[in-house]
Structures are given as structure tokens and as C-alpha cells.
């Protein structure tokens, strides 16, 4: 290509986004990176919804986890977004307090999330359990509890994510707090020698684990399903902990400032229908919030199913998080 062509390509790319394809109504959904990418649920979701709505669905990657919420806070009521998809229950209380989200109009009769869902603003679309993932060809007796993990020899190493920059990292913080309450600092002190390092995000940690740097990595109970289904590799397992596993429930909510409120409601309805829920397990690698009528994909039946689902009530999440974070910092900085 000549430089001129390249330039033209660049300019057209720059402005392509500003041109609206035709006069179909446009529904803009802010979500996270891995959702919109071609390997995530985004493309299939877009196709399925556009087939039934006669609209243009735009999935915009606007940050991960908490930064999705800060993006909405930055934009305020002037935002173009109609919906936000990708917050979790650690953030819903704070999200509500911004007064930017509108209450739900309609909720599905049945939700297959492990807890009773009572939130009137946010609707779950998928969920999963945090867990430590290991290589079952290298590790024979995986720990069965935090105490068991602490009792492992000191060259047994785990990689975790920083709760200040990553949702799984924050999940582990809440997990320990939910199980041990006031004993959390003690548990973290016990875990400290086992923690090889703390990474900014999930990708770094998981990459390091796959490189063989650590015996276990903090991820989800559903991670082995990816290796099993997409790579036909049964060597990854999640360690089942007797205390139970902490839940992450991912939700979507409608913004008050939306100029397409009916369309947004239609999307939320679609979100808990088979058409959407079918896509989730093998693209987002999480459990669907409403199990599709066809059931879960093969491979999901081989995953561990925690006996006990742990979660901190959304209203207390902020306060507990602050306390737990301070404890975590103190215990690991020694």
C-alpha cells in the first residue's frame, strides 16, 4: 500500500465510527474488553440481538471491572451509553449511589444464580466461582482449604491479582474475609510465603501460571472448561475448598439518561433469554444466569461444584472491602 492509501485507511477508520450506518435506532452498551473482543461473546450477542430488534447494537469496551463504573461516573448524564454490562455485586451498591441507573422494569421468573436475587436495578447475566486453578499432571494433592494451602511447604507458590486493580484479586480478598471475618489478617499472614507475586490483572497471573511459574493461580472454577472444550486439554483443574467458594455475579443495568429506554429494556429481556445465555458458557467461560433449555455445554459437568456459595451483601461490599484491603496490605507488606 502506498502511504496515501494507508493514510486514507486511517482516516476512514477514524471517522467510520461517527457515521451511523442507517437510521435504525442505536443501542449503546458499555462493557469490558474481553466481552467485545472477537473471542468473547460480543460478536454473537450483537448478531443475535440485531436479528430480533431491528436496531444497531453497539458494544463498546469502556474498561474492566471497576473502571467501567468510573467511566460512567466521568461521563455522567451526558453519556451516550444506554446500558452498562459487566459490573459485579462488589460494585452495584456504589453504582446505585451515583443515581445514574434506572430501576428494572421487568425481571425473569427464574434465575439460576446460586443466591436469591433481589436487586431492583441490576440484572445478572452470568456468574462464576473464584478458585485456584492448577495443573493436575504436576500437582497430585491440591489443597482443599485455605488452612491446607497454608500448611503446604514454602516452595508451593500461588499467583494472585492485586485487589486494587483486578476483580479476581478483589474477589479473593472478599472470599477470605467472608470465610474468616476477624481472622482474615492471620490467614493472609499464613498465605504470604506462598504468594509468589501479585499481578495487576488476570492475564499476567494466568500467563505466569501457564509458563509454569506457580503451582496455582487465582481464577475461576470455570477456567478448566476453557482448556477442556476449546483446547481439548484436561490437565487443568480447580481446587475445591471445603469452606466454599466466593461468587462473582456479573450484572447489567440501564442508565437513566438513555435515549432508547424501551430498546434497553428489550435488551435486558433478551439478555436472560436462551439466545444470549447460550453464548455465555463457551465465550465468557462463566455460568449463564439462566441455564439454557438445552442445558450447559459438555465439559461443564466435569467442573467442581462448591458446596457452599459465599458472597458479601452488595450494600456491605464497600465497607468490607476497605477493611479487608487495609488488612491485606498490612499482612503482605511485612
Amino acid at each position, binding site marked *: 500500500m502506498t502511504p496515501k492509501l494507508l493514510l486514507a485507511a486511517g482516516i476512514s477508520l477514524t471517522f467510520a465510527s461517527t457515521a451511523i450506518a442507517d437510521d435504525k435506532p442505536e443501542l449503546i452498551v458499555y462493557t469490558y474488553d474481553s466481552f467485545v473482543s472477537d473471542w468473547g461473546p460480543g460478536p454473537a450477542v450483537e448478531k443475535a440481538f440485531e436479528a430480533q430488534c431491528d436496531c444497531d447494537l453497539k458494544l463498546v469496551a469502556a474498561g474492566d471491572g471497576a473502571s467501567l463504573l468510573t467511566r460512567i461516573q466521568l461521563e455522567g448524564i451526558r453519556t451516550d451509553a444506554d446500558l452498562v454490562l459487566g459490573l459485579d455485586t462488589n460494585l452495584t451498591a456504589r453504582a446505585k449511589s451515583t443515581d445514574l441507573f434506572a430501576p428494572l422494569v421487568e425481571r425473569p421468573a427464574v434465575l439460576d444464580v446460586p443466591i436469591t436475587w433481589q436487586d431492583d436495578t441490576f440484572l445478572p447475566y452470568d456468574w462464576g466461582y473464584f478458585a485456584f486453578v492448577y495443573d493436575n499432571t504436576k500437582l497430585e494433592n491440591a489443597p482443599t482449604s485455605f488452612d491446607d494451602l497454608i500448611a503446604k511447604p514454602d516452595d508451593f507458590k500461588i499467583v494472585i491479582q492485586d485487589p486494587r486493580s483486578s476483580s479476581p484479586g478483589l474477589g479473593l480478598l472478599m472470599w477470605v474475609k467472608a470465610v474468616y471475618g476477624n481472622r482474615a489478617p492471620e490467614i493472609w499472614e499464613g498465605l504470604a510465603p506462598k504468594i509468589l507475586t501479585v499481578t*495487576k490483572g488476570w492475564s499476567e497471573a494466568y*500467563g505466569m501460571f501457564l509458563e509454569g511459574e506457580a503451582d496455582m493461580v487465582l481464577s475461576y472454577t470455570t477456567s478448566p472448561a476453557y482448556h477442556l472444550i476449546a483446547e481439548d486439554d484436561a490437565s487443568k483443574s480447580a481446587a475445591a475448598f471445603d469452606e466454599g467458594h466466593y461468587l462473582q455475579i456479573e450484572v447489567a443495568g440501564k442508565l437513566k439518561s438513555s435515549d432508547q429506554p424501551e430498546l434497553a429494556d428489550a435488551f435486558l429481556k433478551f439478555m436472560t433469554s436462551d439466545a444470549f445465555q447460550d453464548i455465555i458458557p463457551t465465550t465468557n467461560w462463566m455460568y449463564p444466569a439462566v441455564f439454557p433449555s438445552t442445558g450447559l455445554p459438555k465439559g461443564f459437568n466435569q467442573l467442581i461444584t462448591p458446596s457452599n456459595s459465599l458472597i458479601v451483601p452488595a450494600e456491605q461490599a464497600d465497607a468490607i472491602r476497605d477493611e479487608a484491603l487495609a488488612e491485606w496490605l498490612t499482612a503482605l507488606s511485612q
Partner: protein
Amino acid sequence: MAYRAQPIRPIHFVFGGSAFVLLLFLTLGTTLAVWARADVSSNLTVADWAAIKFSITQAFVSAIISIAVAIPTARALARRKFMGRSFILTLLGAPFILPSIVAVLGLIAVWGRAGYINSFLEAISQDRIDIYGFGGVVLAHIFFNIPLATRLILQGWMSIPAEHFRVAAQLGMSTSDISTRLERPMLRAVIPGAFLLIFLLCISSFAVALALGGGPMATTIELAIYNALRFEFDLSKASQLALIQFGICAFIGTIAMFISQPMKFSQGLDRAPERWDSKALRYRIFDFSVLFLVCGFLFLPLLTIFLRGIGPAFSLPFQVWGAAVNSVLVAVFSALIAVGMALAMSMLIIRIAQKKRRISRIMEVIGFLTLATSPFVIGTGLFVITFPFISPFSIALPVTALVNAAMALPFCLRVVLPAMIRAEDHYGRLADSLGMQTWARFRLAIWPRLRRPTGFAAGLAAALSMGDLGVITLFAPPELETLPLVMYRLMSNYQLSSAAGVALLLILLSITLFWIFDQGGRVEHNIR
């Protein structure tokens, strides 16, 4: 005729001045915009101060070690000619553009618990080494910065005219005499600036420091800023931390500028230098050992990145190529903007220096400010400023190019300014006495001396821009991707092997761009 200082023409004020204004806007302006948007004010906690302390300590140690290793490396490259020398020079551009996650994975493939070195140590039943902790942070930072330091210092060596070495040889000066008379004064001029650059690069490190730092003790200011901006929406704290980073930059920058003394070499004929003094075998052994060790240290991680990526690189998903075009476009434009700004600012600084030395020094320090600015703060600040008026999506690529240019500016300025000062010293008066004016004066007298540094600076800026994730994350519309963005998206969808392919493509493209620009400038020896 008495020599009079070059007048400051309106054109210098217009271009140089607007470059400065733009710089201040992107740094202080965006920080203040973030502050102004804060709803509540908050105070820094003990943990924040611990982060500040850790940032400064690790940056200081990393910068010292990088420079200490770079001096003998640059000397070896300056006084030896061998096959593969220019290959090494080009590859030196690679490490510091690596996206942090790629660098971390490359480094642990060599130094990690399951890495080559530990496997080797285990095989010979020695104790394994554990890099996680302060040592790991420094290791990663010197991996990033030795190449940069080496290239900057080598630039200094190249600025010593070949004739000086000839005269030294005729006078029978020993290697240590040459070191005292020629090389040390050069180092004194070059090192403070290089130190400052590396110090600032290290102080604003975040993902790398955390991943190899072994835990939250390795929290840097940048992580605290990220946390405040993206997690807590505490804009007040984010802008305070950003201002503290400016303060550190200004403080260290002022000291560095104070220590730095301009080089006082007379002009030469741009011949390639020949070193008669260091032909003794022991010097050769020393030089080649240094090069061997440094190249091993730098290139082993790169090699593993290459080996991981080469397979997947042949089956990359289609949209990667669109992202590659975007990345290259942004890189080329930001290189041009960065070099243009550096040239304009250098001209203004030199002309002001002839009258007001102190002001010009302050301006030099301002040139470093973008490095002390968190890309998250710049991004958020620009977002806050532009969002009420224009959709961020429609300006994604231009804004990215502009911010990347500003981020590369400190490097470009460090490379271009000393060269321009020398060119003015050596040829400025001659040009004036010949009555050369403005454009002819620049083209004939100054530019030939600037080509090599300008090419190098543009190469650096382009490579830096390629690897940067920066502001694109806040501004990118759904269809628009750059290579680092695609790579992170792949990784977050378990596609680690494709991501390795994209990482390799990213590195190859960056090195190619770096090489093209650098080559364009490296014809100095043939400019007669």
C-alpha cells in the same frame, strides 16, 4: 565583527512556544482538569507515602545500575567494529518498547522459577535464585533501560570528533588519558540527562514492578494513581499523586541539569573515528566480554518471546492486520510530531539560553514533564476536557498520536537538543558570517549535524508509540483497535498463544520502524 547572539525570530516563538504550551497543557493542564472534576478532596494515606518512597528508591537504583552497565557497553560499541554491530544497535531498540506483560513473561522464561537459569542451576545442583522482590523490579527495569542508556551514551561517544582521537594517538595518549581528557567530559554532559530519563521511566512503572515485585510492597505511585482513578473514582487523590510525581521530576531534573556541563569539543570533519589506543588484547577481551554479557542479558528474553510468537504469528486472526495498520499510522504520525516539537523547542531553548541561561534550563526540565505524568491522568484529563464538546470516539487516533508524541518528547529532546547545541557552536557563527539566513542556515549549517540524532529520536518515538496502550483505551470506539489493545484482548480471552504472535508482530513492526528512521539518520559519515 563581534559575534552577536542569534535573534529570536517570531517563527521560533510560534513553533517552539506552541510546543511548550501544548506540553504544559497535556501535563499540568490535564492534571488540573482531573482535579477540577473531583467532587470531594481526600488526603494521602500512609500506604500512598509508602508507594512514593518505594517508587523513588527502585527508580534510583534501577537508573544507577542501567547507566553503570551502559557506559562500558557504549564504549565497547563505540571503539569496536565487528560483524553484527549494527544488528545489535537496532535490536537495542527492542526491549524498552515491549508491552509490560510481554516483558514480564519473557523475563520469567529466563529468570523465573521454571526459567532457563534456574533449570541450569538445578542441573548443576546449585541453589535456585528467586527474583521476586526488589531485585526482580530492578532486574526488569534495567532490562528495559540498559538499551536506552547505551544508545544515549553511544550518541555522546559519536559526538567526539574523530580528529580528537587522532591527535590523542599522535600524542601517544593511553586509554586512561583519553578517558580523562575526552570521554569523561562527554559522559558528564550526557549522563545526567540519561539518568533523569531512566529514573522517570522507572518511577512511573506499574504492572512490571508489581508482577516481579512479589507483593504489595512493590506498589508504585502509578499503581496508586490507577487505583484512585479507575477503581475508586477518587480524582482528587489521583491529581495530588500526579502533582507529587511532577515535584519529584522537577527536583531531580533541576539537579541533573545543574550537574550536567555542556561538551566543549571543537568541530571535526565527521569522519569515522579510529581507536589506536585500545587495540591491546586485554581491551578487546574486556569489550567483547561486556558485549557478550549484556547482549545475553537483553536478547535471551527477546529470543523466548520470538520463539513463543513465531508459530502463532503465521495464523493471526484477520483483524490483527487492521490493528497493525492503525498502530503504524499512529506511530509514524507521533514520531513526526515528536521530532517536530523537539526541533522547535530546541531552537527556542538555544536562543533563550544565549540571553537567559536559567530560563532555558527550566524549559529543559519542562521538556521532561510528560514522563513524570501518568498516562492515566493525561487520558482522563483529556477525556474530561473534550467529552462535553466532542465524542471521544471521533478523535481516538489523533489524540493517541498526539499523546504518544508528547510521551516520546523527553527522549527526542534529550537526543536532539545536545546535537543542536553542538551544531550551533560549531557552525552557527560560520553560517552567520556567511550571511546565511533562516531556512538556508538551518538546512546547510545545522541540519546535517542533526540528521543522525533526529533519525534516532524519530525511531525511538515511533517504537514507543507502537508499544503504548496509553490513552487509546479511553478513546477507542468499538471498531478501532491497535496492536497492544488486540494483544490484551486476546489475553483476557485465554488466547495466550495468539497473543504471543501479536506480541511478536508488534516487536517486529516497532523494530522495523525504529530501523527505518534510525537508518535514515545514520548517514552522517557520508554527508560531505
